[in-house]
């Protein structure tokens, strides 16, 4: 057995593979919302843990890029830490937790609160790229439905939701229509984040490794959440403000404090929360300490 098993290329993937993935990305950008099949590679992390996002990031990252990786909006969730460490190891790139400093942001389940700007790329990790999958399990069928723009089934499902529950009960992975043509799965982000996708200045790339699909929303592209005239799309609202930074109108995590029903709500986007606190914003939980210190 050879002593050194392998030396890996910059960003792990070989250049041939990167070119193949870039071609898929270019096609995806050219046809917004269309799922481009690509020859997904086996990655050194498990399927379902971001192999699609990692392959997209590995194909577009260069030595001068600054990478941010989040999971559930946080930079220090274990899988985000692991993916960030992977790119530090195989690509030796600069990493950051600051949204505004990053050129590439790989994410799972959230879009940062801070508005993304031109030149930034948001890479989503996607488990099931097919928005119609929960209605029709067969790929051969769903591809046909997209080709024929046959989305009636989806509207029927949303209608049934209203008929049964009085509202559309989809709270995350809420389907959107991109550029007036393809219905797309925004990945399991809460629907709270859907409006951020619309006319974004940043490029949005979606990688599904296990399902071997890449899709994209180019900058300044219409992304409309599906709804009805009498039941318009709504995002989640929170009664509370962030207990740490006092932010309002952001997505909050509910944190259990004790076994007596004690709860607090804090920003899901940890960078946003830290940034606000640095700038002197204080939430209810930190306020008493503030006073004590004065």
């Amino acid at each position, binding site marked *: 057995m050879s002593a050194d098993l*392998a030396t890996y290329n910059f960003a792990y993937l070989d250049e041939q593979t990167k070119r193949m993935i870039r071609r898929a990305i270019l096609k995806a950008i050219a046809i917004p919302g269309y799922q481009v099949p690509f020859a997904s590679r086996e990655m050194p992390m498990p399927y379902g843990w971001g192999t699609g996002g990692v392959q997209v990031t590995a194909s577009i990252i260069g030595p001068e890029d600054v990478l941010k990786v989040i999971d559930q909006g946080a930079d220090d969730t274990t899988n985000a830490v*692991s993916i960030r460490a992977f790119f530090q190891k195989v690509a030796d790139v600069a990493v950051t937790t600051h949204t505004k400093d990053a050129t590439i942001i790989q994410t799972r389940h959230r879009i940062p609160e801070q508005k993304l700007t031109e030149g930034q790329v948001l890479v989503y990790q996607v488990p099931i790229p097919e928005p119609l999958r929960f209605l029709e399990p067969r790929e*051969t069928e769903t591809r046909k439905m997209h080709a024929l723009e046959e989305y009636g089934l989806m509207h029927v499902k949303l209608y049934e939701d209203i008929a049964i529950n009085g509202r559309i009960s989809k709270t995350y992975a809420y389907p959107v229509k991109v550029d007036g043509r393809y219905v797309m799965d925004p990945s399991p982000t*809460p*629907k709270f984040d859907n409006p951020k996708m619309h006319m974004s200045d940043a490029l949005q790339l979606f990688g599904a490794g296990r399902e071997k699909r890449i899709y994209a929303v180019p900058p300044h592209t219409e992304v409309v959440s599906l709804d009805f005239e009498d039941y318009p799309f709504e995002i*989640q609202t929170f009664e509370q403000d962030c207990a740490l930074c006092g932010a309002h109108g952001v997505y909050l995590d509910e944190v259990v404090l004790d076994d007596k029903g004690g709860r607090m709500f804090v920003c899901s986007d940890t960078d946003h929360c830290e940034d606000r606190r640095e700038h002197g914003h204080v939430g209810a939980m930190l306020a008493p300490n503030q006073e004590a210190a004065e």
Partner: protein
Amino acid sequence: MYVAVKGGEAAISNAHRLLADRRRGDRSLPSITIDQVAEQLGLAVDRVMAEASLYDRSLAALAVRQSRGDLIEAIFLLRAYRTTLPRFGSSVPLDTAEMQVERRVSATYKDLPGGQLLGPTFDYTHRLLDPSLLSDEAVEEPARRNAGDEQIMRVSDILAHEGLIEADGELPQDHQAGDLTREPMEFPMSRDLRLQALARGDEGFLLALGYSTQRGYGRNHPFVGEIRIGEVEVEMDVPELGFAVSLGHIRVTECQMVNQFKGSSKAPPQFTRGYGLVFGQSERKSMSMSLVDRALRAEELGEDITAPAQDEEFVISHSDNVQATGFVEHLKLPHYVDFQAELAMVRRMRADIEGARDGETEMKDAAE
């Protein structure tokens, strides 16, 4: 007071340190060597090579040791290594008729040219725990005989002489065997890609599906035409030389399942075949593979598709254990953002229902 969770990096590093400790186990015991794994847990190594699609006993043994004996984890390790290797080309098709056979059995003939060779099999062992294996007792050398000159002809060739069995089938001269690790998968698949998917598919999954066909879910009346295990030569055409050069020998298990077939609008009555070929020694896998291969030919042979084992998209989409384990186990990753969204939704819906109920009670009270 609540402090936002920090320190994922340290936690991960400590977890991996603990994993290494548990892998090594009791330090007073000698560490197991790669050679010991390869020699004494050879069938585990075979399974890892087969489902990782990489024939390298040492690396597979390393993977088994590194994974603490978790074979799907070992398969994953070896695949993640395989994916980085350059592809030089394709070998010429293996000629299993030329196999150096160590085991060969046929259930369709009492005796046949080349004979029935039992080889190193668990068959007919009584499954009684063997106390002699608790210690390191000397093991007898195996009985040996000189290999005869007689070619051990394949059962499919015997049946072919009578014209009772379907032929191997033809492929165009310029056909390039597909590779699903390099191209996106599309349904319906060609049979070469389907066989590749089955050859690297999960042994347990294929076993269960093969079993289901026997129990009536897509029954296909199978007979084991032949199972053979042994070494075959791998050759590759080198365009500059104009002839094939030998790359070496590999051990494979081949199963030819012969299936009774009454004929359909697409094919006349004849014996049809299901095929299984697996790296190393694994009869269970190669037999299951050939049952499922035959079941998946339902469309081609004009049979009704009524059972899971006949459904190509269902079988192939779910046969890969590295994909399956990744996606099932990803459920343990944090999902609290989505859970929060669902929590809020359920609370709202319950509030609506309670509101409506209170409303009804009030109406009732007012009416009384």
